[in-house]
């Protein structure tokens, strides 16, 4: 995957649940499936640990895209965590869309521990999307731009 290098280097935060997606990212790594270095992963126990405030915080501090990955629905290590996460993120993303934030800046993908390829593909396409959207100017604290 080659993305043309421009001035714009996006900051992308990926929240990954410990049991599936973080392991999926590990598998992508051990399979040497590359994706852009713009993505930085934060490990959380479960997608249901991801508070909407974390996502807004990332945008506030200058993130250009935030993606959350968790176990596939039905496969949650804690049985139901990703079901709650799914509703929370759906509503949050809908609200961001509603206030005019480009909806490609946020994404949820379910990536299992076996899906290294999916993890890398997902990150590649997400980063590409963020490049196409450009810098996040609608959601961010101006003080963090200097």
């Amino acid at each position: 995957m080659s993305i043309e290098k421009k001035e714009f280097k996006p900051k992308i935060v990926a929240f990954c649940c410990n049991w599936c997606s973080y392991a999926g990212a590990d598998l992508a790594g051990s399979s040497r499936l590359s994706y852009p270095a713009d993505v930085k992963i934060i490990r959380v126990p479960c997608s249901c640990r991801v508070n909407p405030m974390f996502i807004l915080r990332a945008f506030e501090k200058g993130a250009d895209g935030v993606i959350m990955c968790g176990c596939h629905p039905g496969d949650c290590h804690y049985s139901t965590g990703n079901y709650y996460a799914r509703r929370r993120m759906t509503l949050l993303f809908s609200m961001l869309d509603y206030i005019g934030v480009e909806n490609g800046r946020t994404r949820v993908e379910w990536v299992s521990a076996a899906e290294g390829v999916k993890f890398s593909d997902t990150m590649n396409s997400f980063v590409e999307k963020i490049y196409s959207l450009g810098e996040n100017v609608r959601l961010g604290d101006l003080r963090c731009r200097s």
Partner: protein
Amino acid sequence: MQRIGVFVCHCGSNIAATVDVAKVAEMALMEPGVVHAEDYQYMCSEAGQAKIADAIHEKKLSGIVVCSCSPRMHEATFRKAAERAGLNPYMVEIANIREHCSWIHKDMEEATKKAVILMRAAVAKVNLNTPLKPGESRVTKRALIIGGGIAGIQTALDIADAGYEVDIVEKTPSIGGRMSQLDKTFPTLDCSACILTPKMVEASAHEKINIYTYSEVEKVSGFVGDFTVDIRKKARSVDMDKCTGCGVCQEKCPSKKAPSEFNRGLNTRSAIYTPFAQAIPNVPVIDREACIKFKTGKCGICSKVCQAGAIDYEQKDEIITEKYGAIVVATGFDTINLDKYDEYAYSQSKDVITSLELERVMNAAGPTHGHLERLSDGKAPKEMVFIQCVGSRCSDDRGKPYCSKICCMYTAKHAMLIRDKYPDVNVTVFYIDVRTPGKNFDEFYRRAVEQYGVNYIKGQVGKVIPQPNGKLLVQGSDLLDNKQILKEADMVVLATAIEPNPDVRKIATMLTASIDTNNFLTEAHAKLRPVESPTAGIFLSGVCQGPKDIPETVAQAGAAAVKAIGLLAKDKLMTNPCTAHSDELLCNGCSTCENVCPYGAITYEDKEVNDHGIREVRRLAVVNSALCQGCGACTVACPSGAMDLQGFSNRQIIAEVDAICR
């Protein structure tokens, strides 16, 4: 302020080839709190771990960041190393610069930049780490099995054989369950009673097993390792110690009109009864609804004829309270109610029966003493039709969306047995699909077709119409011939869908075990933890978890037993310290967190608090750290931020976010 040491691993060339590890270490020294940074060939090696230990001692480190491979690889290694050096193991954080960085990036500059950011995030987190200590809780070395069918009996035997006390609670007067009602079992056609009865006897004779029949679980409190359970022992009206099981009372009982549960209501029993001859315990109960003495006060014949003086009309329900370390649910199943399937004329004709009823008809102890005959007129049938998938695989609200799994096999069994015993009877099976995965299963089905000449028709039956001549007109499809078939039959057997025992919802609520939309208990993980409930200390055995046949049930019963034994074998439980914790001063007592906790780990208590001088009693969330698994669902549900997760606190995650975005 923490004193943090950062250790950057080369991992040979795995990391060092694409990440400038020295630069990462150098940059680490610029981070707040970092007082030591170094890089080394293999941090996970003994020499590498020694470096960490040395630095902890020399620099008085309070926190460690290891920039290395995934925490899923070596987090435990480094935590142990830190612990050996006297540091709390939870003061260690890993920056994954191998799987998430060096292995996926080629450009050294870019990869190094990213590694620095990942290091910063880990440092930012460690700055907020606090020492955590796993809790301990004791384990009561006793297991409770809810349900005394084959699943419950097998689990009980396996646990008891390992040397632990086991109590079985069975709702009906005898253990044995559904299997005791079966005539023969597939795929080997053993007599069900012949293989079950020895297990029942073994269970009742086992010194470690205590059986409460005619009893129900009333209340469950506590948590893994330390449950307290109230068991209601219903009044049997017969003294179990005195009764000799002679059976005279049942013979003399004048009230004989109660439908026999054991025979699926196909015949009747006396008011004082044992469900079946091999019942364990072999002690009758008085059905107070049917008993003349209880209804009118007159009679008392059983008391008069009982030489042992075991009849006790005054007996009352008894509540037994017992403590358990583990609970196994083995509540089994029943067939669904067919009221909504009137097209099969089940309610209109006695000759339309369910497969389970056919088991009783075929059984020597059944209503027809094992003779295959029409229940309407006692005549021997000549044409029999079996209908598959009655209520299974239905997406509407009449039936169940799942496959009941056992019907294909038992229908083949029935067809085969009938053709074997009554070669002049024609057997036709209407099926949608024949599903026979399992050892020797398809061979079994093929034998029914090839050896016994059972007529399998691909297509469903649309309706069954009772005829004036007593026959049943079956209208069905033959999809392969593209024909509509009209067939006169003497008997129709419905492969009725099975559903979890209706009591299971109540029990699941008591246990805070989760349950799916079909009332099957949910397993902790569909693949990797199939016999454990997500609620710690609760295990699943048999059909309560999903449709299964006998061999699968027995296998799962054994698996559940092993899991329970694994728990009971421990003296103390170490609990995961990364659990939720509620800030009492911020808690609103709104119960939102309680509603999303999959483990029932959150309860509410009225507690007195001192909120900056204001003393008042408030309703507050209390997390039982023995039950909490640390998923964090509650932390996001909590609007005030009172609920936080140790090890992954709000501020820690925010610090990571900030570090990455800066």
